[in-house]
């Protein structure tokens, strides 16, 4: 197991390095950071002056090395908009995003797991059809529209919940529901098909033949074996949650890094954009590394491979 973890650790480090490389290349080769930073009216001289000042005339490899070594020291440059180090501008907003993502994640599990099990156990019943339709719909509705519709219904029409902001706990409900429903739908669908596959296995028949109660067969024998699937889906869902946060935060004016990302793109504050992209992608790599270790713990067969 140590060998497996070591290998995955190395892969994660390579992935994080790759992320910095891609971010650097996209910003500096595909685009021109100077034209992105300055207003379109800037003269050629102004652009050249800034280019010289920020070292954009150096060879790419030198620039990348400078970028990487500064990044390792936590220095991502100054935010133009806030006149503060870009990293601290972003870190200030991380808690809001984490709160939102974690709540959404819990919601997705609370909805996804029971519906997934129910729909597999009561296969082809009316309940199953209903759950499946909702799960399918949940995967087709764009998050921003769902957010707006929830807002329209719960805030505008019923006036139960605030439309946006971060003032009270109930401001968290709509954004996290918006963000969590897509993941919930995915978990339902994956869990259902996995449970159905497991329920057809011989050891389930054995358990039943022993005269065990249906609930015990389902929860202890079938669901426990479906856990590894859930874990894999969960790891992947984190990416969905992080990406979805960008849209959900924008819709609900939630003061997290997703909204900051969109604002910074619109303000051409590319130092901040860079930090957010790196932080989001890195946290996704880290989460998946943790998921793989957990996976290894609950499914000992992995060790043998």
């Amino acid at each position: 197991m140590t060998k497996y973890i070591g290998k995955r650790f190395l892969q994660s480090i390579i992935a994080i390095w790759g992320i910095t490389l891609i971010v650097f290349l996209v910003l500096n080769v595909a685009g021109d950071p100077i034209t992105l930073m300055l207003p379109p009216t800037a003269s050629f001289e102004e652009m050249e002056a800034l280019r010289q000042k920020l070292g954009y005339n150096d060879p790419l490899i030198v620039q990348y090395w400078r970028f990487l070594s500064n990044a390792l020291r936590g220095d991502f440059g100054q935010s133009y908009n806030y006149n503060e180090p870009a990293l601290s501008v972003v870190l200030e907003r991380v808690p809001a995003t984490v709160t939102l993502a974690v709540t959404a994640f819990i919601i997705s599990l609370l909805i996804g797991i029971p519906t997934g099990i129910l729909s597999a156990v009561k296969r082809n019943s009316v309940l199953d059809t209903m759950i499946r339709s909702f799960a399918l719909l949940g995967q087709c509705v764009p998050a921003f529209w769902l957010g707006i519709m929830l807002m329209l219904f719960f805030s505008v029409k019923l006036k139960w919940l605030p439309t946006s902001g971060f003032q009270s706990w109930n401001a968290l409900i709509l954004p996290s529901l918006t963000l969590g429903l897509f993941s919930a739908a995915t978990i339902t669908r994956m869990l259902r098909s996995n449970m159905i596959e497991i329920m057809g296995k011989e050891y389930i028949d054995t358990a039943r033949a022993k005269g065990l109660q249906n609930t015990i067969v389902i929860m202890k024998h079938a669901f426990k074996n479906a856990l590894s699937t859930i874990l894999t889906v969960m790891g992947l869902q984190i990416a969905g949650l992080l990406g979805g946060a960008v849209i959900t935060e924008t819709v609900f004016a939630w003061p997290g890094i997703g909204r900051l990302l969109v604002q910074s793109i619109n303000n051409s504050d590319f130092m901040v954009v860079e930090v957010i992209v790196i932080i989001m992608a890195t946290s996704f790599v880290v989460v998946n590394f943790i998921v793989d270790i957990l996976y290894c713990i609950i499914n000992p067969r992995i060790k043998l491979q």
Partner: protein
Amino acid sequence: MWKSLKENRTGMAGIIIMLIVILMALTAALIAPFDPAKQNLMAKLAPPVWSGGTLEHILGTDQLGRDILSRIIYGSRVTMLVAFSGTIWAGIIGITMGAVSGYYGKWVDAVIMRIVDIQLSFPFILLALFVAAVLGRSLTNIILIAGISNWVQYARLVRGEILSVKEMEYIEAIRSVGGKNGRIIMFHIIPNVISPVIVQATLGMARIILMEASLSFLGLGVPLEIPTWGRMLAEGRDFMLTNPWLAIIPGVAITVTVLGVNLMGDWLRDYLDPKLDV
């Protein structure tokens, strides 16, 4: 195929939805009652016909008096164009990379698979957003982004399939009569992996439609003067209190289209791979 489709009502529904949207996109100029960009400030913010509006503007008008129905019809063009060309582009990159990776193995495989890993460590929409922000607004860029943020799935799929067929006897037989690598990949391996690729393509297409809508919603999609569903939704949001239909209608259009693609994909998966009985 027909028989399977007749038995599968949801699959049929999916295909009908897709056909309607494709037809809408192809004949937009003929069937749209108004020019989608034509402003008529005298008739701005008219409600749809079921909510007190007139038959002239069945789905109402927006804040500049533009006809919503015409904009929805024209909006389908961007959706379909990006969905199809993005999917084809992603498929070409992905299949090529996957085939090369699986067939040649060794360091080629290692390098390509590391690229795949790195790309998978980007939340999909984040990569799209980032590239869109840097490259700027244009239809070509959106298609390009759809391609580069979606090729990975095909690459993994094709690589996996190739690994399992490349040692088979018929491949060896072709090689023994002097078949070249490129020819073997093109004519003897890829046809074998085409059905999972088609299923993947429908899933990918749904993702691309949602991606394009999200980027347009955030103002990073195609240029603002081209009507798109995502953009209409973003603009309609400002009138949510007084004219909620402005935000509801484009959302329904996106959802129904994605639903159509997904239903079609589910049916295709059942049809092409009957082993999966889920």
